[in-house]
């Protein structure tokens, strides 16, 4: 019973937040709705006893990613509202709607019809959820862990290079903007 309640609240938060992101005219509103969605997903994680991930979700996603979104929105002044009604590409919107709807229906059907989940023999780790996750990450997937840390470094460097203002001296005209 308890899980049903949690599931219900989490799902509602998530789905309504998703709809909000998609249909907001103002990007800042969309960002806020995104926060709602991320929070809902964190709730669903908790309901499934993935405590560690719920925490990481809130900290990283809702806490860092959305913040960077808002920073960028503010930074480049994309506060003009987009004209939702106008679609310059012919046929894009109806076809996209059909595609999305079809996708939903088929996925639900596939999931419902699925008989059983199997094929992988589970490896059991000891301890609480946090201990289990950390054991898995730091023993079986250590290499991937290291690689992702390298990836983060690369991302940081990339962001710094990309966002650098072009130098004001006339001699170097390297265009990083490129377009």
């Amino acid at each position, binding site marked *: 019973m308890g899980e049903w309640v949690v599931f219900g609240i989490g799902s509602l938060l998530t789905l309504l937040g998703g709809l909000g992101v998609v249909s907001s005219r103002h990007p800042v509103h969309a960002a806020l709705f995104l926060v709602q969605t991320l929070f809902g997903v964190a709730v669903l994680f908790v309901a499934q006893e993935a405590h560690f991930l719920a925490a990481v979700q809130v900290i990283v996603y809702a806490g860092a990613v959305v913040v960077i979104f808002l920073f960028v929105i503010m930074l480049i002044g994309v506060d003009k509202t987009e004209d939702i009604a106008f679609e310059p590409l012919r046929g*894009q919107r109806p076809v996209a709607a059909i595609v999305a709807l079809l996708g939903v229906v088929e996925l639900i059907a596939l999931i419902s019809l699925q008989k059983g989940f199997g094929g992988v023999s589970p490896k059991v780790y000891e301890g609480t959820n946090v201990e289990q996750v950390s054991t898995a990450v730091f023993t079986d997937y250590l290499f991937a862990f290291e690689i992702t840390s390298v990836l983060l470094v690369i991302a940081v460097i990339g962001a710094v290079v990309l966002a650098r203002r072009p130098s004001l001296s006339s001699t170097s005209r390297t265009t990083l903007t490129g377009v």
Partner: protein
Amino acid sequence: MIDLVWLIPALPLLGFSLLLLTGKRIGEPVAGYIATAMTGGSFLLALGVFFDLLSRDGEERQVTVKLFDWLKVGQLDVKVAALVDPLAITMVLFVTGIGTLIHLYAIGYMHGDARFSRFFTYLNLFIFSMLCLVLADNFVLMFLGWEGVGACSYLLISFWFEKESAASAGKKAFVTNRVGDFGLMVGMFIMFNGAGSLTYLGVFKVADAGGFTRNAATAAALMLFLGACGKSAQLPLYVWLPDAMEGPTPVSALIHAATMVTAGVYLMMRCFPLLLVADPIVFTIIAWVGGLTALFAATIAVAQDDIKKILAYSTISQLGYMFLAIGMHANAAAAFHMITHAFFKALMFLGAGSVIHGMHDEQDVKRMGNLRKWMPITFFTYLAGWLAIAGVPPLSGFWSKDEILLSAYEGGGLGVTGAKVLWVVGLLTALLTAYYMSRQVFLVFFGKERFLHSVGSGFAPMHAEADTAADEHHANGPVTPHESPWQMTVPLIVLAGLAVVGGAMNLPFTKSLERLAVWLEPSVGTHEFVSSGSTKFVLAIIATACGLVGIFVARMFWLQRPLDANLALEPALLKRAYGVDALYSNIFEKSGYALANLVATVFDGKLIEGVVNGTGSLVKLVGGNARKAQTGFVRNYALVIAAGAVALLTYALVRTL
């Protein structure tokens, strides 16, 4: 000795290769002597083989000497092998013998020509091809030689190809021959279909055993005869031979008098066993075609002015006689006439060449006269040829022509329809032959001198400035004729001797004197003449009388009367040979051109171009429309990716359902 028979064609082939590679460097006259030596060597070898064959008995005189396997495909098994039998060796003997004499003659005739060694290269190649033709033991190798002589004929006729008429004549010869070759090939196909083999012995064995249906044998025989008509210039494929006189005179003598044109006769004689199992109408057809051609050509020769054209039509006429004999089953008679004709016709062609050479390239008989004073050797030898062809006994021509007329007279007994009519046709032809040959002799060698200035035009051979003796006579005044050098007169003398005594080969009096017929029997079968001795005698008298009448009439008109009075004897119709060439040109050239035009404009222009261009247009159309998918907008592409993903989902869904 018989094992070395492959050397006989090998020597001219060697000569050809040698002259092809080094001829220009060797130059005149050594190139000519090399070629002559090669042919002469072949002749000596042929003599050796002949004597070897002679030393054997009748039945053993048919030897197959194999060289190597050539084509082995499925049922077809063709070897390069020689069938050495009396007929083959006879042909080889006179081809190489007369060939050697003509090679020698050509050294003198082609003196000063810019392409002297090239000429001998072609001549040796021709001898090689002809030897392949007659020595082959199967139709395929024979066909190789057949085509080879056709090609050499083309090369040699258009030897002076700078002259438009010579080049056209070469083409005409080749194309007309092709029509005949088509017949020969179809005949070969039919024979292969029925016999499963293409060797003579294989096919004839099947024929004798009744392996061919009558229709197949008839069809094959007629097709082979078509081939023979093409090569031996019978109606209606004779039109190339008069034009072939554009080639140098040694070519005319060798190819168009003595050897190549006899290939058709040889073929028919070879295939006698096949003709026997065909419908008898084949023989009738052969006889009538031969007889009519003989008469037809003789009528044209009556009105010709060019010394070589007269001889050309005469050749066609005499070949007609040979086919007449074959039609009457008298193969030995045909072979006899073939040999004697080779002697006297080659002699006369070479004599004509000597006259042309001595008259500085004048070829019109109306502009000659009294040459017996200027060129005595040529005159005396020419006399021998003239009397021989006119059928005056006891020269060789009399015996051979008489044999043929006798076979025509008796032909009715063998089932040939209208044989007696053909006999009359033969007599008429003999009369005309004697007439026009006498006309030629009287105009050329007797009477008043009617020389003009030297001819430097049209049909002159490409003489370099080497004719020193004649140079003084060029500038002014009429031509002064001169006798020819020894290279040219010696062959004339030899051939004249043969023309006179050649009759001794096959005298009809007793069996033992019919040496040629007896000798050839294993190859071509026998033909017993049923007439009594007195009938033969009477027929001979009649034939000789016709000849003498012809000579007498010619003498009356051409020796004793001024030339202008005789215009009625040379009607324009005969002068232009009944307009046959123009007729062929109209029929074939116009329709051929129209057809070619049709194909070029409609088929090629519209259909094929349409398909090709249409393919291009189609591609452009499809591409142009397909391009519209590339909108350039990333969102469209993203949409398509999503749609694709959904499609995969649909597939997965359908699978699980």
